[in-house]
C-alpha cells in the first residue's frame, strides 16, 4: 500500500515528509514570541468541573453539568474573547474528588473549577482550592461549614444553607399548624434540619409531636409511618435527602396518608418528586428556583427554553444551579483583571445578577451567594407531565431583609483570610 486511495501517486514517504514540514513550521511559529502574543486570543482557556459520573450522585452530577454547559453555550462558548474548553472529572469520594481537583489544576492547567454534588466532596475540594489558590464554586452543597468555619478566600457557594432555607419555610408552615413531627436522616444535613426547624418551631410557640432520626439510605419507612400516624401531628417536617425523601413520600401515599397530614422539607429537588410519580407527590418545600415561576427573568426563561430543546424536558433545580454557577463564574471572569486565582476571586466578588427585584451576589466576607428562595407547594391536582408545583411565596420579600435571612457574621463564623 504505497499509494494513497485517490490514486494521485503520492507515496506514504511523501505524506510523512509533508507532515514533518508542517510540524517543523508549527514548532517555528510557537518559538516566535511576537506571533504567540497576537494569536493568544484564540488559545482555548480551560475551566474544570468535578461532578459525579458514578454512584448515588450520578443523576445530580449530570444535571449540574448539563446546566453549566448551557451557560457556556449561551456565552457563545467563550470568556474574555477566548474559547473555553470544559474538562469534566469524576468525584467518586471526597478523597478522589480532591485528587481530581488537583489534576485539573496541575495537569489540565484550568483557570477555575466548578464542582461538588454534595457537601462531603465540596468540603474536601474547598480545602485543596485554598492550598492551590484556585477559584472554586460549589453549586449544590448545603453544609454550613463551607462558607462558615471552613470558609476560605477561593471558595464560593451558590446553594442556600439549611438555616436559610428553614427561615424561609418555617413562617409559612407555622400558619398550617403548630404540632410538628420530625423525621430526619441521621447525618449532618438531617440533624441540621431538625435543629433549625425545631428552633423555628419554638419561636412560633409550637410543640414537637415526635422526632425520629432515620438511618441514611432507609428504603422502607412503613414502621416510621405507623409511629407518625399514632402521633397525629399537624405537619411532618422531613429532613431527608433526595432518595430517602422519595421513598418516604411514596410509602406515605401508599399508606393512605397523602392529603391528611402536610409534609414539608426545607430543600427539595425536582427529580425527588419526578421519581415517585404524580400520585405520590405531595408537600410544601423550600426550593432555590422553579422553571415555571412567573417571576423568572428573561435569562431564566431563555435557559428553560434552551434546556428543554437540548434535553426534552424542563430544567430541574439542579440543572439551574449548574447554569447559574457557571453564569456567575463567566461574569466574574469577564470582570477580573487577570487570569490568576486572586484576580478571578475579586471578579466573582463583584458579580451581581439581576433576578427581577433582589440582585443575587456573593457576599464578600463569606463568599455565600445571597439570593431569594422560593416556598413551593405540590399542586393538589397534577395535570402537566413535569410542572407539579406552585410558588407560594418568595423569601425574603424585600432586598433589605436578604442579609438577615442569610445570617450575621457572628452566626456564620467565617474568619476569611486575606488573599
Amino acid at each position, binding site marked *: 500500500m504505497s499509494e494513497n486511495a485517490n490514486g494521485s501517486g503520492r507515496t506514504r514517504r511523501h505524506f510523512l515528509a509533508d507532515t514533518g514540514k508542517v510540524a517543523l513550521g508549527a514548532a517555528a511559529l510557537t518559538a516566535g514570541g511576537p506571533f504567540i502574543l497576537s494569536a493568544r486570543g484564540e488559545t482555548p482557556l480551560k475551566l474544570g468541573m468535578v461532578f459525579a459520573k*458514578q*454512584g*448515588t450522585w*450520578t*443523576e445530580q452530577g*449530570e444535571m449540574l453539568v448539563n446546566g453549566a454547559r448551557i451557560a457556556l453555550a449561551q456565552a457563545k462558548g467563550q470568556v474574555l474573547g477566548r474559547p473555553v474548553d470544559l474538562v469534566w472529572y469524576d468525584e467518586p469520594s471526597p478523597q478522589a474528588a480532591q485528587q481530581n481537583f488537583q489534576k485539573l489544576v496541575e495537569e489540565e492547567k484550568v483557570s477555575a473549577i466548578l464542582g461538588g454534588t454534595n457537601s462531603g466532596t465540596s468540603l474536601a475540594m474547598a480545602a485543596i482550592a485554598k492550598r492551590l489558590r484556585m477559584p472554586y464554586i460549589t453549586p449544590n452543597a448545603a453544609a454550613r461549614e463551607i462558607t462558615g468555619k471552613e470558609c476560605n478566600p477561593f471558595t464560593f457557594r451558590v446553594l442556600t444553607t439549611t438555616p436559610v432555607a428553614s427561615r424561609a419555610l418555617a413562617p409559612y408552615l407555622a400558619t398550617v399548624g403548630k404540632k410538628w413531627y420530625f423525621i430526619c436522616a*441521621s447525618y449532618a444535613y438531617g440533624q441540621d434540619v431538625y435543629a433549625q426547624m425545631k428552633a423555628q418551631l419554638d419561636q412560633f410557640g409550637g410543640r414537637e409531636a415526635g422526632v*425520629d*432520626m*432515620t*438511618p441514611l*439510605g*432507609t*428504603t*422502607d419507612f*412503613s*414502621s*416510621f409511618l*405507623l*409511629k407518625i*400516624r*399514632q402521633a397525629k401531628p399537624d405537619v411532618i417536617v422531613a429532613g431527608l435527602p433526595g*432518595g430517602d425523601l*422519595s*421513598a418516604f413520600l*411514596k*410509602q406515605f401515599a*401508599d*399508606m*393512605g396518608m397523602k392529603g391528611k397530614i402536610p409534609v414539608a422539607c426545607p430543600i427539595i429537588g425536582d*427529580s425527588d418528586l*419526578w*421519581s*415517585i*410519580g404524580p*400520585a*405520590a407527590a405531595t408537600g410544601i418545600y423550600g426550593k432555590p428556583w422553579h422553571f415555571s415561576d412567573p417571576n423568572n427573568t428573561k435569562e431564566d426563561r431563555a435557559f428553560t427554553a434552551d434546556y428543554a430543546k437540548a434535553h426534552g424536558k424542563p430544567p430541574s433545580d439542579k440543572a439551574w444551579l449548574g447554569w447559574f454557577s457557571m453564569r456567575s463564574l463567566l461574569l466574574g471572569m469577564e470582570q477580573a483583571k487577570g487570569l490568576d486565582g486572586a484576580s478571578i476571586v475579586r471578579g466573582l466578588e463583584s458579580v451581581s445578577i439581576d433576578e427581577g427585584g433582589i440582585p443575587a451576589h456573593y457576599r464578600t466576607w463569606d463568599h455565600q451567594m445571597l439570593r431569594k428562595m422560593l416556598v413551593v407547594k405540590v399542586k393538589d391536582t397534577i395535570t402537566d407531565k413535569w410542572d407539579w408545583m406552585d410558588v407560594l411565596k418568595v423569601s425574603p420579600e424585600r432586598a433589605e431583609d436578604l442579609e438577615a435571612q442569610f445570617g450575621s457574621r457572628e452566626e456564620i463564623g467565617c474568619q476569611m483570610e486575606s488573599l
Partner: protein
Amino acid sequence: MLDILLPQIANGLVLGFLYVLIAVGLSIIFGLLGVVNFAHGAFFALGAYFALSLYQWFGWPAVILAPFIVGGLGMAVEFLLIRRLYGKEPLIGLILTFALSLLIEALVRLVWGAGGHPFSPPPFLAGIVEYGPILITKYRLAVLVVTMALLVGLWLFLNHTPFGRILRAGSRDAEMVGMLGINLPRVLTGVFGLGCFLAGCAGVLAAPLWTITPSMAAGAIMPAFVIVTIGGLGSYLGAIVAGLLVGIVTALTIQFMPEASAAAMYVLMAVILLVRPRGLFGERWERFE
C-alpha cells in the same frame, strides 16, 4: 402498648418475608454451588427494572415474565463466568461477582438512566386494610401471600422432585452424583438460574414498595447476607426464620430506638453468631471444612 406493638410486628413480618425471598436465592446458590454471589442484589434490581419496562410496553400481566428473564440471564452468567469458580478459592468468586454487580449497575444506569422511576402497585391492590390497631397496605398483604406461595413451591420442588434430590445430593458430593451418570454442570446452571429467578421475583415485588433506582441493589444485598449468616449458610429453613426475625427486630427497633434501626440486624447477627457460630440452622458441611 399492644396497640403500638401489634402494627409494628405485623409490618415487620411482611418486611421479613420480602427479605426471606431476597435471601433464600442467595442461600441456595451458596449451599449448592459454594459461591458467595455478591451480584445477587444486582439481579434483584434487574427484576425491578425488567418489570418496569414490561409494564410500560405490555401492561401488568407481562410483569410476570420479569423474574424468568432474570433467571435466564443468571443461567447465561453461570455458563460464561460462574462455572469457572467451582472448587476455587471462595475469595475469587466474591471478587468476580462483586465486579459483576458493579457492571450490572453501570449497565442499568446506561439503559434506564441515573434517576429513579415511579412504579405503583396495580390499581386493584392500591389502598389499605385496617384490622383493629393493625394497618397494612393491600399491596404489602399481596406480597406476603405471593412470597409464602413461592417459598412453599420452592420447598416442594427441592424436597419432592427428582431434580431437587439431585441438587441436594450434588451439593454434598458432586463427584458421586457425576459417577451416577448425572450431568451435574447442567444442573448447577439451573441452580444459579433458580437463585437469580428468586432475586428477580423479590425485585418485581419490591419495585412498587420502594423506588426503582440503580442503587437499589445495595439496599437488598446487605440484609440478604445478614439473614443467610444468621440462618446458617445454605440452610433453607434458616433463611426463613432469620428473615422474619430481622424484619420484626428492625420494626420494633424503629418503634423504640429509631436511630439504631439500621444497626439492629447486625447486632442480632453478632449475638447469634456468638451463641451459635454456624448460625441458627447451620450444619457442618464437609466440603467447606
